[in-house]
């Protein structure tokens, strides 16, 4: 998908292949910082100029336009070389941010290019397979007793109905007990969060802990009282490696990106000395810790 990313990223990363000119131009600068006084212009620069132009205009430039591009390029390059010679790029907030950003892009894209090996993913999975558990799921029935309709009698009525349901009395049909409601009279294989979305968090917490068996209750919810019968309970189920592979990969990439960045900064911080004056020293340590990804 790199093709669709910001052209600059592509340019930097695949520079050698597609936009070789960039790397080539920078080659001229030696370590002392002196400015190279040769400006090389070859077919490669020309192609690059034409392609950049073409991407914006959706057609190749005419000869006149290409001439203009070359002129502009030379003008810009001459001025830029001089500016660098005068060190105008120093202490310029825009240049600094832009340079930092280019490095950021490179880091980010490098991390994206990396892929985990099968073994890495397996190892990550094996560390703690329980981490990938699907939550416990219960199927249950509910008979509802409306506190709004029955007032103080709701609890007594619910207990009376429970007795009928569990004692084998003549009419144990739960669908005829309790009050009619828009709440469902059952949920199938629902986890606690799903139950909470329908019956509210209190009942969800209680019912998610129930084992299958007979009618119990009353259990209180946001709506009233419920007799509940858990018909089936699926314990938290550890999902197989194959089932969580994509999640593992996503997680690996997030971590890889983060740790690559932190490692990079660790390396940089070893190579650079930070000379802080007394007034700011207290703020340097926390900043360095953040860059290294160390907890506060």
């Amino acid at each position: 998908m790199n093709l669709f990313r910001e052209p600059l990223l592509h340019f930097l990363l695949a520079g050698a292949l597609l936009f070789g000119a960039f790397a080539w131009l920078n080659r001229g600068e030696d370590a002392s910082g002196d400015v190279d006084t040769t400006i090389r212009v070859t077919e490669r620069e020309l192609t690059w100029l034409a392609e950049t132009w073409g991407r914006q205009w959706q057609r190749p430039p005419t000869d006149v336009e290409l001439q203009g591009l070359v002129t502009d390029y030379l003008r810009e390059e001459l001025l830029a070389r001089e500016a660098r010679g005068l060190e105008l790029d120093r202490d310029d907030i825009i240049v600094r941010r832009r340079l930092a950003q280019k490095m950021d892009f490179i880091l980010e894209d490098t991390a994206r290019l990396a892929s985990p090996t099968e073994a890495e993913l397996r190892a990550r999975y094996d560390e703690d397979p329980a981490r990938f558990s699907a939550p416990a799921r219960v199927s249950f029935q509910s008979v509802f007793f409306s506190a709004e309709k029955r007032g103080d009698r709701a609890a007594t009525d619910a207990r009376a109905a429970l007795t009928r349901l569990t004692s084998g009395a003549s009419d144990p049909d739960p669908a005829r007990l309790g009050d009619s409601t828009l709440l469902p009279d059952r949920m199938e294989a629902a986890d606690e969060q799903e139950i909470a979305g329908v019956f509210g968090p209190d009942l969800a917490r209680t019912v998610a802990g129930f084992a299958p068996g007979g009618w119990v209750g009353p259990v209180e919810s946001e709506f009233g009282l419920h007799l509940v019968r858990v018909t089936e309970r699926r314990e938290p189920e550890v999902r197989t490696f194959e089932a969580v592979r994509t999640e593992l990969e996503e997680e690996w990439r997030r971590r890889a990106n983060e740790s690559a960045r932190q490692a990079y900064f660790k390396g940089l911080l070893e190579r650079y000395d930070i000379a802080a004056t007394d007034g700011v020293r207290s703020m340097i340590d926390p900043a360095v810790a953040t860059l290294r990804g160390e907890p506060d």
Partner: protein
Amino acid sequence: MRKAIVPYALGTSLIIAGLSLTSLAQEAAPPPEALHEAFPAKKSYSPHAGRNFPTRPFWGDTHLHTGASMDAGAFGARLGPEEAFRFARGEEVTASNGMRVKLARPLDFLVVADHSDYMGFFPKLFSGDPDYLKDETGKRWYEGIQKGGNDAVQTATDIIDRFSKGTFPPALSPLPGTPTFRSAWEVTLKAAEANNKPGSFTAFIGFEWTSNTGGNNLHRVVMFRDNAVKAGQVEPYTTFRPSGSDDPKDLWKYLQAYEDKTGGNVLAIAHNGNLSNGIMFPEIDSFTGKPITKDYATTRARWEPLYEATQIKGDGEAHPYLSPNDEFADYETWDKYNLNMSVPKEKGMLQYEYARTALQLGLQLEAKLGVNPYKFGMIGSTDSHTGLATADEDNFFGKHAGTEPNAKRMAHAVGCFGTNCILGWTQAASGYAAVWATENTREALFDAMERKETYATTGPRMSVRFFGGWDFAPSDATSRLPADVGYAKGVPMGGDLAAAPAGKSPTFLVAALKDPLSGNLDRIQVVKGWIDGKGVRQEMVYDVAWSGGRKPGADGKLPPVGDTVDVRNATWTNTIGASELITVWKDPSFDPSLRAVYYARVIEIPTPRWTAYDAKYFGGHAPEGVPMTTQERAYTSPIWYTP
């Protein structure tokens, strides 16, 4: 159809009886032949099998912006489509202001709808693209944004202002066909594909078309039923001529062309009529200066089955000026200006801006043109520009990154243009879209939206049923399975009634179940709109079900439900109101020769508004006059009666 009910109910009682019997050894099991007789051969044993109507609403936001939207990026949104989807799925993320944030409950679906105009502009400006810096304005903006703080806000305001006024520098406009534009679209497509999990979460592909001529809002969210293979064959439609246009009629052509080209399926949802200054639901087409035509009506109804009736920039169901007898009409009203605050509102504009009046206007136009252009269902959405689809009062992350929670956000402007300002406290923590679909997939949700089986809420997830028919009886409201009765004897929200049987009036089965995490219910109302014998728009709001044995007063008004809100602690108690309401209502003044439209409005008891949660959390005081309580609500899609 009616017969189908009996086996359902019988099946339910028998299956439950059967289950109980197995657990009660002392009960004798019925002989097998008795069971055979009890079940008609064609009906499944399970009452749930073969039940092919929706049994639960799915919740989502059809209108969310991320940092890829030009203005959102300018205001500092750093979350992209990927983070937006992950947040909607229930993951914890870091907001642009650095706070960790998570939804109380995941959403079931989300449309990331970034602005098509200048899509990708901001990431490119932010990256200091050399071409942008060559432009004088581009350079000034880049520096402004880089400085952050107030400079960045000023810059963002300037960007939006120029955008609204059409004075954007041409050199800075990423247009369809450019790499910047394409790459932004690809990011959207990719994020939607990666996060679409049929059965558990639906990630829709979409964008927002942002027609804003003269600062008047005619925006539409465009959403696709299809995957990236199809949606990727086009690029989002912009307002820039010649490849784009600011005229909705041209957007509809684009939608048609998309379906013709790909065989796909797409729809558009308009929003914020309140900021259109009288041109959202026109009688006179603002682009031609002439009355709208039958072709306009047909095409609009074809592509725009839904309207976003509530969102952060104001509620759009009703306006107190248009509905002076409706004491609930003045809810989160934004009626000072058009979108960019360049032109103040005049009263005459309001009738073309609000959903309730538009539904009536649609009936009037239908009588004239033969087609109802404003035959829309209702949804709510956030239109948040933070990448965070938050509509809960106690978890509200605001309109844009600058209004994410902070101690001063109530008193600070959401936006200022010239001396006209809109202050932060006026933001509504609203809304979500509820969709009665059979399953959580792009196809099922989209199809339910096309048939308008949807409703809007201002945030809470109350469950609302609304059926219309000729034969609902009071006893249907006490049914154990109201939805079964509703579908069997009538049409659901979004449906049509015609051919009134002689002497009959429409009856409605309407029911609401509160959100277990929100306030109790105050009342259900049915809003009727119709065109009288003289061709004049009429409306009436009926209280049809309410809590606590209240009696309407001499003026016919039901007394208020009361108020348990403790503003200082941002809490309330559900000691008033009802946890559910259900009734059958019959139109008392039905005239079979007149067109009519009916929808239900459900009102909660007062609960703390987001401003109360802010004041409590940040330990400050709200500015004088800021509302600290709210009565959340739901608006169903209508049911239409056509003679």
